[in-house]
Each structure stands twice: as structure tokens, then as C-alpha cells.
């Protein structure tokens, strides 16, 4: 179940390159295995964060103070494009990121954020660029505040921006809802749908097999 998200005031790190894909956020070999949760924070942005010899790349923003403490990422367009790997969100979460602000996101990444209590905020590119510029002017010291209840972002200099968000997703984040449990409360509707659909599209509803593969 995701952790609820309400308000956040935190250091923000701008990563402004466009089209940062989920392969860049987390390399696939870190995701091969069934017990990877808790191991990923170290590997987020691995290709940017570490030099070929494994040492930290001092140039990369998240290796510099105060950005090491960042809980918010300010991102370029189409951040999180590419694969469906939820490990990308897990790795951000495990390195302490709680919100991402950008002008657009990869669709599947965007949905995955909500499943894990990370707030993705979509605002106009001018606002994103303005926030990044303010953060850079303060060498990262200027904090950004996000209020999900009010749907506002406050920039380091105190500029207030509103953002839109799907009410259902907002409620889910505020309360940390368990979607599986909620949908299972509608199981009667699911079964009624299937019964009616079986008459209309019988080819969709295959016969149940005996348990086991080797029938």
C-alpha cells in the first residue's frame, strides 16, 4: 500500500534533459530477481551517477550538496519515457524522492508513480524552467513546497503555481489507498460483466483449465 502524500517542503534537483528514459533511471540488470526491493536506491540514475570505474561522478547533480538531500526532481519533457518497469519508480523512491515536477511524463511511469506514493506534478514548461532557474540561483538551497490538498507549488522565492490532478488519483495519494482492495469490493460487478460478456463474446472467455501445466 502506498504511503500517503500530503505536503512536502524539500530540496529540489533539476534534471532538465528531455526524454530521460526508464533505462537511464534504472538499468535492467538491477531489476532481475524477485527480491530487489530495498536494493535499488543506490542504482537510480546509475549511468549518470557513477563513472566507469564505479566511483561517483562529481559532475552529476545528485552527487552534489545540497542536491544529495533532494526529495523533489524537476525534470525535462517526457521524463520516464520508455519501458513499463516500475523499478524506475522504486529506485527513485528508495533514494528518497517523493515528487517529480515536469511538463510531461511517460504515460506508464506516470501511472506507476501514483502506485508508490510519489506525486508527479504536470505544469507548463515555463513554470518548470522557472522553478529550475530559481533553484539554481540559490545553489540548491531554496526549497520548493508542494501542497497536494491545495494543488499548489510554491517556488523558493514564494511564487505560487497551481496544478491540476485527476481527483481520484489525488484522493488515492492523500489517503494512501489500496487499489486492489477497492476494486475487489466491486467484484460482483466484475462477475456480472463477465457473465453478460460471455454471451456476447464467447470466444474471449476460454475454458478454465485444470490446475497445473501438464494436463
Amino acid at each position, binding site marked *: 500500500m502506498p504511503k500517503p502524500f500530503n505536503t512536502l517542503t524539500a530540496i529540489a534537483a533539476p534534471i532538465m534533459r528531455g526524454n530521460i528514459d526508464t533505462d537511464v533511471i534504472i538499468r535492467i540488470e538491477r531489476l532481475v530477481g524477485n527480491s530487489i526491493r530495498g536494493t535499488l536506491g543506490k542504482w537510480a540514475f546509475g549511468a549518470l551517477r557513477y563513472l566507469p570505474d564505479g566511483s561517483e561522478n562529481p559532475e552529476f547533480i545528485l552527487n552534489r550538496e545540497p542536491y544529495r538531500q533532494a526529495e523533489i526532481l524537476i525534470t525535462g519533457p517526457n521524463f520516464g*519515457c520508455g519501458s513499463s518497469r516500475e523499478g524506475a519508480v522504486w529506485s527513485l523512491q528508495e533514494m528518497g524522492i517523493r515528487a517529480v515536477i515536469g511538463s510531461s511524463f511517460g504515460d506508464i511511469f506516470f501511472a506507476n508513480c501514483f502506485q508508490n506514493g510519489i506525486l508527479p506534478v504536470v505544469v507548463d514548461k515555463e513554470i518548470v524552467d522557472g522553478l529550475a532557474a530559481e533553484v539554481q540561483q540559490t545553489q540548491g538551497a531554496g526549497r520548493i513546497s508542494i501542497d497536494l490538498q491545495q494543488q499548489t507549488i510554491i517556488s523558493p522565492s514564494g511564487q505560487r503555481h497551481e496544478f491540476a490532478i485527476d481527483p481520484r488519483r489525488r484522493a488515492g495519494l492523500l489517503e494512501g489507498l489500496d487499489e486492489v482492495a477497492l476494486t475487489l469490493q466491486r467484484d460482483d460487478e466484475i462477475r456480472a460483466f463477465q457473465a453478460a460478456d460471455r454471451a456476447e463474446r464467447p470466444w474471449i472467455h476460454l475454458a478454465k483449465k485444470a490446475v497445473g501445466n501438464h494436463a
Partner: protein
Amino acid sequence: MQTPARTLLAKIWDQHVIARISDDTDLLHVDRHLLHDLGGSRGLLDLRNRNLPVHNPELTFATPDHAISTARGRAGTSKVGQELLAGLRTETSATGIRMFDVDEPGQGIVHVIGPELGLSLPGCLIVCGDSHTCTHGGLGALAFGIGSSELTHVLATQALIQRRPKTMRVRFEGRLPVGVTAKDLILALIGHIGAAAGTGYAVEYAGSAIRDLPIEGRLTICNLSIELGAKMGLIAPDEKTFEYLRGRPYAPEGEMWEQAVAAWRQLPSDPDALFDREVVIDVEKIIPQVTWGISPEHVIGVDGRVPDPSEVTDHARRAAIETALDYMGLIPGAPIAGTPVDWVFIGSCTNSRLSDLRAAAEIARGRKVAAGVRAWVVPGSETVKRDAVAEGLDKVFTDAGFEWREPGCSMCLAANGEVVAPGQRSVSTSNRNFVGRQGPRARTHLASPASAAAAAIAGAIADVRTMGS
């Protein structure tokens, strides 16, 4: 009474609404759920930990593809790869899910086997924990990738909450020039409108060039929808679709087949249906495409030149080009053809079907892979492999110096340890040229199967049109 004109997407969507959640969000029924080795057993274990049964195991299918080795006998599958495979076997067996195991017809890349088995059908809603699920849209299905949490949700409920996307129609008009394939069409589109253009949209591909394409080409087109930013891509089913599906193992039969086809004929977008965005592409102007950078939108015709950042005034664009050229080790303004390559990879859910292997074999036949180039052919499924062997394609490839592998994702993702070495250059028929996609610091150029085979023979990026068979 007149019913309002609807798109293909709207017709499929409406059919699957179990309940309306909000104005633009619905609880949708999932008709087919595909599991693979990378996330399948994790999802099933997740369910077990929550003490929940699989809602509809008979609508769920599994196969290993991502983490298994593609060497003969699957030699060299890593320890975790083996654990994932064992986990998938145990968990599917315990829950009554049909798994297509290694060496068995039906095994292969999830997006190759779905259509091949007739699991993917027109009008069907298909999900899989993999972003290239959009591939199945080539049959007129509504198919899209989901994350791990959504995967667990589907296992537990056979349903998914989704927001209705905006609609885009891309019409490819005209006749395909010689040497130009489905892969070139979709790469050219991504280059033209950008890798983020499809974000938030479901894209319907239409137009005379799409109608002329065989089904396997349509699957290739839809496969790269996600590289356009679109989670869903789809093509209206037609007689070709029905002919392709007839007689496949999970396709309906007899009277039910007739009933299904009658329903499928109703699916195409109504003539006056409205789309939120329309794009028209003149295919007669397209030539074989190859990527030069680290996003699929970094693409040019094979007769083109690598961009020169000094000629670009926009600061962000210039920086992006510089980063890409630096990573790719290319000289600004240089012709892309003639760039020496180390690796050629023919495979992946984009281009590993029989027609792709035939196109590559046609170029490879009677020729030799250039010295210093390693070239792999990885069929998309056990069935593709057997069909190709029956035609002697494996022999064509091995005679030319290609390696003929077992089916799987292999070097598309390099999750199974099959990687391009750091700094090496690969021409690949897959779908992503992202930084490190084929291995840390590997340099990937995306191209069609024929263009990839041409690169293997030439030892460099080459214009397939100059290499007639």
C-alpha cells in the same frame, strides 16, 4: 436513430467498461493477461503474500523470454534468470495458468507469441507488464503495458482502472518504395513528430500503406507506438487480419469464428469519427531509416548526415545533440552510411517474426558477414524458429557467418547477460537506442532487418537499396 460516430479505440473501450469511475476514467475488463519471467513470478508471489487467488487463470498466459539465455540448451542463463524461470513454473502451475515453457511451441517473446497463438484477437483488451504490449494493436486489439502494481491488480481482479486517452490518427499514404519496410515507416514518423508526440494518446495507424502491409508489418508499426510516447497503438482489423488468425490455436472455430468475425467487422472507426490529432505521412518520400542518437527520434535516412550541433540555434536542442553524439562517438555532419559496426542484432518483438528473418536472409544469402563483425539472429519464438529452419533460413544465416540462436529477448534489453561491450557499435532491429540499453556504454543504431543484414555484410551502416539480392 443515428448513433454518434466512434473511433476503433472508443468501440473497444466502451465494450470493456465494467464501471465508470469518474468522467474520464473507467474500470475495464482485461481479456488477456500475458506474464513473462521478469515480472510474472513476482506478481504471482505478491498475490500469494496477500492471500488472494488469481481471478481468471484461464485468461492469463505465461512464457519465459526476458531473462533466459538464447544460447543452445539455454546455456549461461544466470542464477537469477534460472530462479525467475523456476519461480514462473512453480507459481503458474500452482495457480492454473498456462505457461509455454522453453523448447515448447508457444514459447517466445510475449509479443510474438500472443498473435501467433491467436490469443491476441481484434477487439480484445490485452495487458502485460511490458511497454511493448502495444504490438498486439496490429491485430485491432487494445493492448498496452502496465507496471508491477497494475499487474498485481489485474491478477487479483481481471480488471484495470484506466483513464481514457486522447486519440491520434496517423495515415500513411502511398506505395512503399523499394527497400523500405514497416520499421522504416514508424521510425520516420517518430523522427517527424518526436518521441513525446504520442504521450497521452492512443494512436490509430491508417491509410493505404497500412492496408497494404501484411499483419507482421502492422505488428512492427504498433510495436514502436511506445517509442512515440503512446501507450497504445492500433490498426483496424480487416480481411488480412481474419486470414492471419484463422486456425490459430486459441482463435475461435466453427460457428463461433463466424460470430467473432461478424463482430470484428464492426470495429473499424466510423468514417466521420473525430480524432484529437491527425497526421498524414507520404510514404513515397521515405527511404530506409537509421538512428544516430540515443532517442528513437534521433533518426535520419540512411543517405543522410549526422546533425551538426553548431548549426542548431535552440540551446536545449543543441545540448541534446551534443550529448547524443558524444555518447554515440559520431562526428558532427558526417554521413551515417559507412560508419563501421561491431555488432548486428536481428531479433526482438519489433522484428523477429518469420517475414523479418526472410527479409534479412534475402540480403545475407550467398554473402559473408564482414570480418570483425559479430552478427546474431534471434528468432522471436519457438514456432518462428521451427518455421525458419523448415525453410532453411538458419542455414542461410550460418553459411553467411551469422549466429543462429534460441528464441528470447536477448540483446534487445540485455537482461539475460547478452550484451554489446562498452564502446562497441551495434546495428539492431530492436526498438530502443537508449543509453546503455544493449549494455553499459553500448552504442545502438536502430534499423530494419534488411538494413541490419546489410550492415553485417558491409561491416558498416549501409544502404540496403544498393545491395539487391
